[in-house]
C-alpha cells in the first residue's frame, strides 16, 4: 500500500510503471478493471473468503412495535392514514382467524377431510390490501387471507372445503386449494414451488400485453429450497418480468425449522444474488407490510423487473390437520408468539391506542363474525355434492368419445345399483354432462 501511495504521488513514475507492465500491442493494461464477460467489480490482492456468518443479516423493516406503538423516528405509515381501511383489514384478519378455528375443528370432528390454518400469518391481508385487485396471484396454500381481502364470500371457502355443488372446483381439489378467476387467484397446486416459475411466465405474458398489472407469487421458507424457486427467480430477473415474490418465512416447513432449511441469511439474501431488488419486513406488522407492498408494486411496474419481499412471521398453528406441532416445538415458544407477537394482537393494540377500537367492539365484532361464519358453515354442510358425472368433464376442452362412453357406463351402473351407493342421496341427481 505504501508503494502504491508513493507511486500515486509521483505521477511520472506510476505512468512509467504502467507502461513497463503494459501487455503487448492493443490490449488494455491488466491492472485496471476485470474484462471477463459479465464482470462488474474490481481486482484485489487481498485473499478474503466471504464468510456469511460475519454479516449481520439484512435488517427487518418495521414501523409499529409489539406494544402497538409507532417506533421512535418511524414515519407515519400510509395505512394508518386511512381509518376505514385499517378497520376493514383488522376485521378481515379476525374473520380469517375465526373461520380457520371453525373449519379446523370441523376437520377434527370428521366433517371435512383436511384443513390448513393461517394462524399467526393473518397479516397477509394487509399485503393483499396494497395490491391491485387484478394483479394475478399465484400462491402456495396459506394465503386465504388474500382471497378474503379481495372479497371472496365466506360461503365459497366453506363450499370448497365441503366439495359441494357450489364448490368452484367442482369437487376436484382437496380443501383449502381455492382458485377464483373472478378474484385473479390461480387455483392452488399442491407440489411446492411449482407456482414460482409459472408466476414468472405469467409476468412475462403480462409484460408482453402491457396491461399495467403485476403478478404476485407467494411461497414459504421451505419451498424456497426447491429447484423451481431458483429457476423462477433467475428467469424473472433475466427476462425482466414484473413479478412480486413474497416469501412467508414463518420459521417452519412442517417440522423442519429454518435452521435446518438453510445456512444463509434467509431467503432475502438470495434476491440480490439473482439481481432482484429485495426487502425483508416484519410480517406481523401490518403497517410495514402495507408500505413495503406498495413500494414493491411500484418498482415492479415502473422498472419492469421482479422484486422480492421476505416477510418474517411465525406459524402459530400446526402445518395442517395432519400435523401435531407439539412433537417438534415447545409450548413456551408457541405461547410467546401467541400472546405477544402476531398481526392481530399488534394491530389491535395500535388501533386501541389510536382510539379507533375498544374491548367492547372486539367482543361484539368477534361475536358477529362467529355467528356469520357458523351460519354459512351450516348452509355449506347441508348443500348437496355435485352430480357425480361431473367427474368426467374438463379433462380436455372437449370430452372425447371414449371418455363419454365411460361416463355413460358409470351412469348406467349407478342408476342400476343405487341401493349399493347410499351416499348418492347426498349428491345432486345423476345426469350426463358435456
Amino acid at each position, binding site marked *: 500500500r505504501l508503494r502504491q501511495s508513493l507511486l500515486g504521488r509521483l505521477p511520472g513514475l506510476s505512468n512509467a510503471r504502467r507502461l513497463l507492465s503494459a501487455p503487448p500491442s492493443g490490449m488494455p493494461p491488466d491492472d485496471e478493471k476485470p474484462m471477463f464477460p459479465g464482470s462488474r467489480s474490481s481486482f484485489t490482492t487481498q485473499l478474503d473468503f466471504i464468510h456469511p456468518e460475519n454479516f449481520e443479516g439484512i435488517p427487518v423493516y418495521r414501523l409499529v412495535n409489539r406494544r402497538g406503538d409507532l417506533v421512535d423516528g418511524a414515519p407515519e405509515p400510509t395505512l394508518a392514514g386511512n381509518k376505514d381501511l385499517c378497520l376493514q383489514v383488522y376485521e378481515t384478519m379476525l374473520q380469517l382467524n375465526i373461520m380457520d378455528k371453525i373449519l379446523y375443528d370441523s376437520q377434527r370432528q370428521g366433517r371435512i377431510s383436511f384443513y390448513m390454518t393461517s394462524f399467526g400469518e393473518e397479516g397477509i391481508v394487509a399485503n393483499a390490501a396494497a395490491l391491485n385487485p387484478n394483479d*394475478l396471484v*399465484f400462491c402456495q396454500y396459506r394465503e386465504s387471507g388474500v382471497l378474503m381481502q379481495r372479497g371472496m364470500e365466506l360461503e365459497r371457502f366453506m363450499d370448497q372445503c365441503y366439495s359441494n355443488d357450489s364448490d*368452484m*372446483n*367442482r369437487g*376436484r*381439489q382437496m380443501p383449502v*386449494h381455492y*382458485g*377464483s*378467476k373472478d378474484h385473479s387467484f*390461480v*387455483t392452488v*397446486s*399442491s*407440489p411446492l414451488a*411449482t*407456482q*414460482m*416459475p*409459472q*408466476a*414468472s*411466465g*405469467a*409476468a*412475462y*405474458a*403480462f409484460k*408482453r*400485453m402491457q396491461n399495467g398489472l403485476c*403478478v404476485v407469487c407467494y411461497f414459504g421458507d421451505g419451498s424456497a429450497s426447491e*429447484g*423451481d424457486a*431458483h*429457476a*423462477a427467480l*433467475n*428467469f424473472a430477473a*433475466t*427476462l425482466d418480468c414484473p413479478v412480486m415474490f413474497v416469501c412467508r418465512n414463518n420459521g417452519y416447513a412442517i417440522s423442519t425449522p429454518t435452521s435446518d432449511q438453510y445456512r444463509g441469511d434467509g431467503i432475502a439474501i438470495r434476491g440480490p444474488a439473482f439481481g432482484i431488488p429485495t426487502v425483508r419486513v416484519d410480517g406481523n406488522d401490518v403497517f410495514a407490510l402495507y408500505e413495503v407492498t406498495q413500494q414493491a408494486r411500484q418498482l415492479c411496474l415502473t422498472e419492469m423487473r421482479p422484486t422480492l419481499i421476505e416477510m418474517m412471521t411465525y406459524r402459530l398453528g400446526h402445518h395442517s390437520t395432519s400435523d401435531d406441532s407439539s412433537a417438534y416445538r415447545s409450548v413456551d415458544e408457541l405461547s410467546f408468539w401467541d400472546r405477544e407477537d402476531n398481526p392481530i394482537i399488534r394491530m389491535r393494540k395500535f388501533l386501541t391506542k389510536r382510539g379507533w377500537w375498544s374491548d367492547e367492539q372486539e367482543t361484539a365484532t368477534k361475536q358477529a363474525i362467529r355467528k356469520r361464519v357458523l351460519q354459512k358453515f351450516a348452509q355449506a354442510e347441508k348443500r348437496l355434492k355435485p352430480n357425480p358425472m361431473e367427474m368426467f*368433464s*374438463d*379433462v*380436455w*376442452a372437449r370430452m*372425447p368419445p*371414449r*371418455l363419454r362412453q365411460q361416463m355413460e357406463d358409470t351412469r348406467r351402473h349407478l342408476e342400476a345399483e343405487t341401493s349399493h351407493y347410499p351416499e348418492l342421496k347426498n349428491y345432486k341427481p345423476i345426469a350426463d354432462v358435456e
Partner: protein
Amino acid sequence: YLIPLSSSHYPVNQTTMHRPSLSACQLILRSFGRSGGNIVASRRFASSMNVRDALNSAMREEIERDPNVFLMGEEVAQYEGAYKVSKGLWKLMGDKRVIDTPITEMGFAGLAVGAAMAGLRPICEFMTFNFSMQAIDHVINSAAKTYYMSAGDVKVPIVFRGPNGAAAGVAAQHSQDFASWYSHCPGLKVVSPWNSEDARGLLKAAIRDNDPVVCLENEMMYGVSFEVSPECESKDFLIPIGKAKIEIPGNHISLISYGKFVGLCVEAAAELAKEGIQCEVLNLRTLRPLDEEAIVKSVMKTHHVVTVESCWPQCGMGAEIAARIMESQAFDYLDAPLTRMTGADVPMPYAQALEAAALPQVADIVRVVRRTLNRAAK
C-alpha cells in the same frame, strides 16, 4: 443428416402408384433439404420437404398467424436449435417470439405453463424428451391436470415438443421413448409424427389446440425428405388429432406403429409384398386419444396384428393396443394373438451392434409377420 440405409420408396398416399426407387444421389440431395424440383413425373405439383423443414415451416406459420404463439427452449434462438429445427426463426421473428432459456427444464417448463395460464400459447421445446423428466411435474401436474382441477377456469394451451426415442449411439440417457409415459395421462394429448406431412399437420393442429399437447418427434427423421401434396403446403393444413392413417392398405396383417417405426413397417411391407403378403400399415399419428376405431377396423379386416414401437415391453404402447383389441369386437376376428415388437428390456446400450439389437429392425418385423401368418422363412 444421415440418409436412410435402404433405398426404399416413400409412399405419399395410398391412391398413387408406388414410385420407382430413388438413386442414392437423389436420396442424399433430398436428405439435405434441397427440394430441387420434381423427381417423379407422375406426381405433378408435388414437392419434397424434410421433416425438419416441415416442423420449421409449421412453427413459422403459426407464429405469424397468432401473436400469442411463441417458441422457447434451450438454444432455439441464435443457435437455431440443437437440431436446427428452429433454423431462421429468431432472425425472422426476434427476441419476443423465439426465446432462449437458461438450462433448467423444470424452470422453463413451469414458466411456459404460467405464460399459457396467463393467455399466451407457448411452444416449449425440450432438447430431447429424456430431459423432460426433469420437468415432468410441470407437464403433468401443472399442465395436464389444471383444466380439470380448476373446473375449467384455467386453460393451458401449450405444446411440448422435441425429439423422442433412440437416435444413433447416444446411449441410455438420451434414447428413451416416452410414448407410454405421456399417453398414460388424462388431460394431455399426445401426437407422434412420422413423415413431413404428419409433422406439419400435427404440429399445426397441436399449436391451435386448446389442450396441452405433447408432440414426440424423432431426431433420425429430421433430415429425411418426403414428397408432400399441395394441400400439405397450405398455411391452414391441419391433421385432426385422434385420427390414424392407413399408409398402405392390405388384407393379410395389420402393422400398427407410430413415429419413426412406421417407416420400418413400410419397408417391411415392401419386402413382404414380394412374397404376396399384403401388410396394412397403420400410422397411429396420435397416441392420446388413440384412434381405436381405426385399429379395430383394421384388425377386423386382416385378422392378424403386430405392433411396432421403441418403448420397453412392459406397459408400452403395444400393451395398450392389445388390451383395446381384446376389449372390442375385433377380438373375435383374430386368427392369431397380437405380437408386440418393442425395444429390448434394457437401458439402451451404446455400442452400435448392441443398439441395433435392442430395437426392432426391418428384418425382425418381416420375421414376426411370417411367424404370425404361419409362413415359413424364405
